[in-house]
């Protein structure tokens, strides 16, 4: 069986950052596995420019960040196995792969799980109709495959994803009839919200989906106002004739492999639900198994790059390529890069939970 020093599951921003940092520190024989035909994870559909500082590659579009990072991986001699599904991790850090009809196994001294997230849905009558798509799903169809799944869209959720995807739908030539959010305020950044309000798209806060109507696809959607306890207020229904309802209502970590490895888990609703506990170095409760990016708690791509890098640095230290002092220094630098993305009101809860997630390792009371 082939042995790698470092196996990375998932070639998105977290996985690539982890591999790049480890390779820069001198780690040999690194492999990235990804089930998709291209590296980049969900960056490949992010046509907007990123925020932050230079370490977050701010000012660049997600699509360009993906190709720049992929190029860096190739330049550093990292093995990239595309179209490859990691379907299991077994005793002795054995990684089970499936690639174009062939099964394969290999072992690795350290493994980074950077498997990302899946989209949430909200259930209401009609939510399973064709024409109800996730915001990520719509983005993939229009920005990667260049097809528009609908012409008249109701966007549910005013977080950054909902706002950005609304703007991208307008860019692609679709009509966004409204953006709704159950919260009494807009969830995302003001800069994203104003981009769409300038184009006359109303953002209706304190509104939820009541019903989606249609026979073989979405024909209309009914929304309803909610009170301060999120209870629907009868008589406030509004009907929109749309062919598509876009759900931008959060993500959940894809953490199956971490469950399989026996990692301890913690339930943190603000971060997307069940997620593996891990140290400040991104190591889970199972030695040698690391986690980064959305798979270790939902944030976004810029923080995924940072947490991936922190994991890569820790792996390099554990394999003897970095001294404890140097590793600490590099980690502090990357941790600082997380701060700008954890400073809003959501971020305060994040930071509080951050301590919880780290401190839980080695303690009792968590599902094992």
């Amino acid at each position, binding site marked *: 069986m082939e042995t790698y020093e470092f196996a990375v599951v998932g070639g998105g921003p977290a996985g690539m950052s982890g591999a790049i940092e480890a390779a820069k520190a001198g780690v040999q024989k690194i492999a990235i596995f990804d*089930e*998709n*035909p291209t590296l980049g994870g*969900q960056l490949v559909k992010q*046509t907007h420019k990123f925020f932050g500082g230079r370490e977050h590659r701010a000012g660049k*579009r997600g*699509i360009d960040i993906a190709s720049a990072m992929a190029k860096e991986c190739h330049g550093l001699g990292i093995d990239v196995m595309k179209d490859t599904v990691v379907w299991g991790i077994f005793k002795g850090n054995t990684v089970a792969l499936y690639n174009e009809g062939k099964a394969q196994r290999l072992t690795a001294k350290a493994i980074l799980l950077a498997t990302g997230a*899946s*989209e949430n*849905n909200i259930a209401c009558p009609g939510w*399973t*109709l*064709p*024409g*109800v*798509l*996730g915001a*990520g*799903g*719509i983005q*993939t*169809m*229009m*920005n990667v*495959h*260049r*097809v*528009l*799944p609908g*012409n008249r869209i109701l966007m549910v959720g005013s977080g950054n994803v909902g706002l950005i995807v609304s703007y991208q739908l307008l*860019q*692609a*030539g679709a009509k966004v009839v409204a953006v709704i959010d159950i919260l009494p305020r807009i969830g995302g950044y003001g800069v994203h919200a104003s981009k769409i309000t300038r184009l006359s798209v109303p953002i209706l806060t304190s509104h939820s989906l009541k019903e989606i109507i249609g026979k*073989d*696809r979405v024909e209309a959607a009914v929304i309803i106002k909610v009170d301060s306890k999120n209870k629907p207020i009868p008589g406030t229904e509004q009907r929109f004739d749309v062919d598509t309802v876009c759900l931008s209502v959060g993500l959940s970590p*894809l953490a199956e492999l971490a469950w399989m490895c026996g990692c301890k888990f913690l339930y943190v609703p603000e971060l997307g639900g069940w997620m593996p506990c891990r140290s400040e170095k991104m190591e889970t409760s199972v030695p040698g198994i690391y986690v980064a990016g959305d798979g270790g708690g939902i944030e976004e791509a810029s923080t995924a790059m940072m947490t991936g890098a922190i994991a890569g640095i820790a792996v390099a230290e554990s394999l003897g390529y970095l001294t404890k002092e140097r590793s600490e220094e590099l980690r502090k630098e990357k941790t600082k890069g997380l701060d700008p993305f954890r400073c809003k009101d959501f971020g305060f809860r994040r930071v509080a939970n951050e301590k919880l997630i780290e401190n839980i390792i080695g303690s009792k009371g968590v599902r094992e």
Partner: protein
Amino acid sequence: MRILEHPILGKMPPRKVVKIEMEGRVLEAFEGEPIAAALTAHGICVFRYTRVRKEPRGISCAIGQCTDCVMVVNGIPNTRTCVTRVEDGMKIQRQE
């Protein structure tokens, strides 16, 4: 509908056109694009009907996670059409 012009992505680069068959209907598609993208471009949105209640289903996540868009492709059921790439002559059927 295909997005031929895009303010950020530019003009759609030329791609090889192939033919696929969807329940007797011959459709033009781009080689290598996901089956789901080709069908969407032709305005097809019902990909299958549920077995018991016969409810229509289409694309939801488009990245192979939710399995809502599965169809029978070249006789193989439960094929995730959002991550299965188009090949010339493919035969596609709705799953029921």
